[in-house]
């Protein structure tokens, strides 16, 4: 059974048109992450939540926002997608603490046209 679910799997959006990606988890994990992964590159951390505490990476563009209304759900909002934002977006969760693995969703592949 999928424990971290991302919707949709594929998203096509127009240049400049706001888009929202969603992630839900059934693991009750405190920590949720959003990563951006471009072709043949490592997943790049955009931000993470520890419960409701939001932590933005210094180099995450302002164009990217996130919301976590409750433990189970987390959203990634791209306010004005550019062609350079086309990528796979991965959501992951973990319990707090250094001994815990991260569980990844299947990802949402975003195409900007």
């Amino acid at each position: 059974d999928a424990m971290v679910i991302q919707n949709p799997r594929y998203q096509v959006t127009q240049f400049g048109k706001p888009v929202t990606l969603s992630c839900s988890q059934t693991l009750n994990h405190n920590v949720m992450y959003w990563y951006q992964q471009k072709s043949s590159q490592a997943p790049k951390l955009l931000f993470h939540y520890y419960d409701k505490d939001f932590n933005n990476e210094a180099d995450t563009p302002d164009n990217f926002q996130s919301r976590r209304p409750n433990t189970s759900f987390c959203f990634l909002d791209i306010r004005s997608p550019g062609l350079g934002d086309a990528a796979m977006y991965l959501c992951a969760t973990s319990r707090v603490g250094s001994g815990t693995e991260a569980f990844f969703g299947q990802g949402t592949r975003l195409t900007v046209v």
Partner: protein
Amino acid sequence: QQPVQSPQAVILREGEDAVINCSSSKALYSVHWYRQKHGEAPVFLMILLKGGEQKGHDKISASFNEKKQQSSLYLTASQLSYSGTYFCGTGGHNNNDMRFGAGTRLTVKP
């Protein structure tokens, strides 16, 4: 800060061995290893927590040298299914900001 992985790519014949290295300029509290196949999400392999810890299952194992801020992943007698990109992930004390190395693309050929 991202950990540094080497090599960038490895090509093996079935049955050969490989080592992938991961190092960090910051103190490491844990090292995670993941494998990602094309178009799929990363899949967890193992975590190492303590300096000197070694872990393994099947023919994949890893070591963690906390003092040197390094970890290595060992793939022994590689199988075709080992092909993929291997990432090491390192996080802070509470594992709340896990960052990945650039990845090592492993190709195992018959």
